[in-house]
């Protein structure tokens, strides 16, 4: 379509417009609420006391203790190996976990562990809702710790709101400065502890302060410090709502029989203010005091039902129980309950709880299967490993007497902490003689030694008498220490007969 602009006619005046820059227009849009991002509404969670809060404090102490103490646990290993119980040794290519030592080739155990963790998460979610989110997730734990620090400096909810609204003063300045200083300290402690998992902790902590640690140690310390400070200090619930995929996935795990933090609307409605001495007849137990709302670290009203934001932490249940005690009504207006139970009670039927249902059986079955496989794999893994590389150039060598010799490189891994003397057997061609450099040729098995916790590449030459084989003959190398053994298939190539 052609647009015709007729400049001979009077132009319609833009209604009193001054020149507007594009940036100004974008700014104007944002202030009108039309921007791409919603501005964060600050949340000031109020301190509550009660059963779930106590459990959360306990888990906070336990999980943080595990995080900070684990790298310092020592574990004796022979032969100059790291003495750290839990260590991801990238330089040495090993993962140490107490008595278990994994090689890079065995990374599938880590994969299996992650699958197990996912299955456990599915099962727990189907049974009890997002307990992980509410109690154990690092985002929750560190945010809880940061709010504890915030409360110590700035007071509880109302005091914090007043302080934020107040103009700058010395009192506000030192409280804010102190809070951020402690936050940064915790963040640095978090980032600093992270690197202990990847280097020998006592060594790296000394090297760190004198500039001798690896560059990656400084980078990851800085990275984890920054993410801790930003995620736990400023972003908090936004990490769960906007960044984490789990709240979206959980919809597939939960059903009406999953326990989750529930406002029992059958008991609470119709809600409304209640004065002391008034009758409770004909109304619900909810007195609309908003205690559950102000306690919520996610800034939601649980009475609106199950929501994506809810991390199932139970703080609103504690807050409500305190109120119910005061007004003399039974506890548990907000509690871990199922949608099915609430619906049943609303119809006057007894609540039915079904922890055993197809979904939980699947998850439990899958978890048991994967755990079993991993356990079997871990207990049955061979301490020696063998890979055979056949020489390709030359594929075979013909000797003066017409016998044929093939060269192989055997990569023998000794996963134990002790030196091993292994016998190497070759099966496939009759009359084969084995030879390894530095030892006389032998008709039977060869003996090679492999250092502890190492792979040794051994050159093996197999010579077969004239006419013993033609073309490519399948063959098998076996290495054995008398108990454990490893086998590898290969081929003996003797070319076409001359």
């Amino acid at each position: 379509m052609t647009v015709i602009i007729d400049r001979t006619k009077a132009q319609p005046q833009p209604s009193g417009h001054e020149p507007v820059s594009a940036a100004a227009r974008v700014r104007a849009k944002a202030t009108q609420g039309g921007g791409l991002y919603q501005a964060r509404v600050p949340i000031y969670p109020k301190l509550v006391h009660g059963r779930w809060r106590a459990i959360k404090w306990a888990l906070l102490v336990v999980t943080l203790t595990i995080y900070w103490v684990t790298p310092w646990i020592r574990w004796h290993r022979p032969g100059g190996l790291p003495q750290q119980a839990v260590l991801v040794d990238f330089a040495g290519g090993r993962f140490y976990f107490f008595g278990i030592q994994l090689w890079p080739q065995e990374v599938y155990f880590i994969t299996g562990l992650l699958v197990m963790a996912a299955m456990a998460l599915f099962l727990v979610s189907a049974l009890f809702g997002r307990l992980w989110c509410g109690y154990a997730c690092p985002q929750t734990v560190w945010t809880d710790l940061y709010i504890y620090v915030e409360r110590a400096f700035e007071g509880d909810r109302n005091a914090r709101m007043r302080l934020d609204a107040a103009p700058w003063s010395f009192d506000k300045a030192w409280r804010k400065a102190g809070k951020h200083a402690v936050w940064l300290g915790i963040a640095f402690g978090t980032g600093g502890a992270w690197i202990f998992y990847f280097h020998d902790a006592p060594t790296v902590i000394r090297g760190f302060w004198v500039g001798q640690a690896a560059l990656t140690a400084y980078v990851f310390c800085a990275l984890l410090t920054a993410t801790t400070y930003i995620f736990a200090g400023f972003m908090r619930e936004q990490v769960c709502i906007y960044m984490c995929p789990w709240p979206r996935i959980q919809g597939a795990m939960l059903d009406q029989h999953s326990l989750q933090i529930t406002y029992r609307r059958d008991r609470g409605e119709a809600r409304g203010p209640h004065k002391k001495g008034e009758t409770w007849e004909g109304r619900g137990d909810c007195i609309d005091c908003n205690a559950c709302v102000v306690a919520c670290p996610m800034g939601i009203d649980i009475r609106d039902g199950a929501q994506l934001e809810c991390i199932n932490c139970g703080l609103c249940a504690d807050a409500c129980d305190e109120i119910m005690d005061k007004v003399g009504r039974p506890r548990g207006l907000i509690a871990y309950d199922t949608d099915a139970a609430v619906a049943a009670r609303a119809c006057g039927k007894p609540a039915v709880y079904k922890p055993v249902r197809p979904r939980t059986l699947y998850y439990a079955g899958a978890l048991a299967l994967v755990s079993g496989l991993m356990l079997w794999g871990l207990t049955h893994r061979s301490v020696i490993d063998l890979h055979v590389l056949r020489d390709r150039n030359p594929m075979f060598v013909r000797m003066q007497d017409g016998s044929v010799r093939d060269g192989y490189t055997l990569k023998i891994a000794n996963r134990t902490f002790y030196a091993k003397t292994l016998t190497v057997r070759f099966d496939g061609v009759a009359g084969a003689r084995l030879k390894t450099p530095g030892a006389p040729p032998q008709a039977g098995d060869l003996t090679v030694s492999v250092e502890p916790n190492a792979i040794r590449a051994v050159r093996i030459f197999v010579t077969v008498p004239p006419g013993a084989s033609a073309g490519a003959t399948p063959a098998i190398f076996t290495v054995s220490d008398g108990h454990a053994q490893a086998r590898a298939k290969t081929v003996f190539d003797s070319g076409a007969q001359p």
Partner: protein
Amino acid sequence: MSERRIDEPTGVETTEHEWDGIRELDNPLPRWWLWTWYVTIAVAIVYWVLMPAWPGLHGYTKGILHQSDRVKLVRELADLKALRGAEGAQLQTASLEEIERDPKLQAYAMAAGQALFGDNCATCHGQGGTGGKGYPNLRDDVWLWGGSLEQIQHTITYGVRTGEPGAATTQMPAFGRDQMLKDAQIDDLTEYVVALSRRPANPAAVARATQLYADQCAACHGPQGLGDQTRGVPNLTDSEWLYGSTREAIRDQIVNGRGGVMPTWGKRFDPQTIKALTVYIHANAGGQ
């Protein structure tokens, strides 16, 4: 400056630049672009301070980090030398047999030897060491100059027919080219050599050449044709033929008497390098 004019449909100021009635809008630069630009300026200034940056009349600004790729290379080479230090030093003192027997030294020598072989030897002997016409196969059990560790070390160190002191000087006469023998005699000798390697040959020619062989060839190749490794004389009774096994190839060799040349590696490599190479070749040949 002229009065600011506003583009009516968009309400945006114009730059007053006009081409064929099209005026340029003076939209502001995107903020992210502008800030990125400021950041690059800041980075450039920091870079000038830290790194070599500005040319001058006498050299250039070094920057407070004193970054220099040349200095870094020198340091890396020194590090490499230090890294090779432990085993490299042991190669100096250990005997060839000790190197081959000790798993660690053997692994070091094999790795070093493989690289050295690929860089220096493979051109003639082939990447796999199987040689070719005129270039001996180093993987089988036929050795012109001997296949023990010491013999291989000697051959590598001194080379073959290079004219250097210590290098082998033996040379087969060019019986045909230098007209030492007649064509018919060479034909008979060819049959004789074919017979030596237990292949069917013309008996009359063999009989005629018997005295000729004893006079001309046996001095080096021996009365039985078994050769002599001390002088690099090939064994004529085995199945290995450096210049080919056919009658034409054998006759050609009697006529021209070719002999290959191998460099005197002792002039280029230090002794431990030659030791590593020796162990690599010896081990891969199955070891005599």
